[in-house]
């Protein structure tokens, strides 16, 4: 059986705006990924715990509330603590180019601001998977 890329789509913090998360989750599913959606109101700890339990390849955070400068660094820290070196942390939402640059420098994967293409995000994840996981037997 082919191995599918497993992605956790997660909403962090108090933010209840889930349009983006749901659209992305559906798009990833239709692109052939195995998608787990966290639902609302997750702490960084809860997200990392789910990622470990579900053995995901990718954590994709959707955020609108402006709390991204707190959320991403905390998740990164917890990922390091748990030796999740082979898991990609990516995400998208209402983030300025400056903030995105700062977070990517801290060690997140590519982050997607408003108006980003979903196809590009899918390509990015597939590409990352090919380069970082053993066999590119997806597709």
């Amino acid at each position, binding site marked *: 059986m082919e191995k599918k890329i497993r992605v956790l789509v997660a909403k962090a913090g*108090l*933010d*209840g705006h889930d*349009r983006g*998360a749901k*659209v992305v989750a559906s*798009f990833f599913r239709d692109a052939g990924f195995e998608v787990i959606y966290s639902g609302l109101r997750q702490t960084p700890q809860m997200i990392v715990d789910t990622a470990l339990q579900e053995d995901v390849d990718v954590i994709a955070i959707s955020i609108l509330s402006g*709390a991204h400068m707190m959320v991403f660094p905390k998740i990164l820290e917890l990922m390091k603590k748990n030796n999740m070196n082979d898991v990609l942390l990516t995400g998208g939402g209402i983030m300025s180019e400056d903030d995105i640059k700062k977070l990517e420098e801290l060690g997140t994967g590519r982050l997607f601001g*408003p*108006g980003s293409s979903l196809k590009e995000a899918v390509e990015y994840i597939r590409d990352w998977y090919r380069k970082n996981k053993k066999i590119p037997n997806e597709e």
Partner: protein
Amino acid sequence: MDQKAYKRWQEEVKKAKTRDAKFITASGNPVELMGIPDMLEDFDYDRDLGMPGQFPFTRGVHANMYRGRLWTMRQFAGFGSPEDTNARFKYLLENGQTGLSVAFDLPTLMGRDSDDPWSEGEVGICGVSVSSLRDMEILFDGIPLDKVSTSMTINSPAIILLAFYVAVAEKQGVSPEQLRGTVQNDILKEYIAQKEYIFPPNPSMRIIVDMIEYCTEKMPLWNTISISGYHIREAGSTALQELAFTLADGFAYIEAALERGLDIDEFAPRLSFFFNSHNDFFEEVAKFRAARRIYAKRMRDKYGAKKERSWILRFHTQTAGCTLTAQQPENNIVRVAYQALAAVFGGTQSLHTNSMDETLALPSEKAVKIALRTQQILAYETGVPHTIDPFGGSYFMEDLTNKMEQGAEEYFQKIDDLGGVIPAIEKGFFQKEIAQAAYRYQVEIENGDRYIVGVNAFKEKNEKIEIPLLQVSPEVEKRQVERLKALKRERDNTKVNSLLKELRQAAVENKNLMPVIVECAKAYATVGEMVNTLKEVFGEYRESADF
């Protein structure tokens, strides 16, 4: 209609070259090439439109509409500390804004104090932080509450923020019956779309009816709910879903208040609505017109309201935040202007125009001023407000309005079949409908079936997005937490504790919660303390994580 000419026209249309484009509305419905008289075979002017200010109010709610009074220009504002937002309010009032509208931060919206662990990183970020009456006093410092009208976008803890407002007014020597404004207080759309719920639906509905009861008696000028389609649309619904789900919510509140034994003609005049104005110009105008007609008919014929005032659907409009683009952000000024124009053709009572920088941050002072000026140009330069409902009688517009009404009636039937709004929420009906519409819209953009200028068409090569953005300093959170700690030391804690016990008791005994919450507010009990007390009695709502 000359059938020969019509046939010939149809033939010519068939032969004519057509652009390679999809002629569908923003909601994905096919658009008629042109309106023709045959579309309105059953049209009856008096029954379907009537005079403005008269049943069924299709053309508007006032006899002379904007010649009497322009719509209220009301820019939603709130960020950082209460001091920051107080300064923004004063700036907007100085620039000719005519009403205030408060945006609270996520902790406040979720009933959490600024020192709650869940609030970390979110204090003052997407609105102003208010944890106690102390913050509210600063927020309205120097603003005479007997002169301005204030709209507060607050839902789950609306009863608490309204109590704060009443308490601040009292300190200014202004009595509750003088206060003008609105609390959004629309919990149903929280379960459906925006997801800032705290308690389960039934106790939430009870709190809302408590407020309606209290305001009907003590605050006759206050709008008790702003039944909101805005967030439903922003979550990705179609125009028709926005219309149908919002009106269904409205009818659910009315039925809940009737069950309490309240008189419809006492409370209905204080209900108001809040709609989105999206990109598709005609569809939006039709939506606003249909909303008034559906509401008037139901209020008179189904609920038996006697007063004309109870039949009137009054609404606030905000332009569609979700249509703005981070790319070439100045283009957003133009989008907002068209959307504002649709709202005015639709007969809105008040309007918020979005700022061009809102895809990235809360608006800067300059951006918000341009947004306000957009409304002022529309009001004073275009001549649009001089006449009433200029699309009235247009074959195309009347047909579209009829289709909106029919489509909404079909949705009402579906919701009834599911057992009403709350059972439909619990079954995830609205949530699924909206998610599917949002997905379809996004896929249309991805596939190039729908163009967004600057995003998938007319892109700038290597665009660097450079507009000044409003930054909220992390210092705000520190200062808010310190202020809250000081407050908790200084206030009379014995009194606070005994009042919180009384609040718990009132919740258990099904007493109206508003009077005791006003007392708690005056004693400086915090939002978090009151909400946690109520959580002990009512529990918390969770939704399943479907997509």
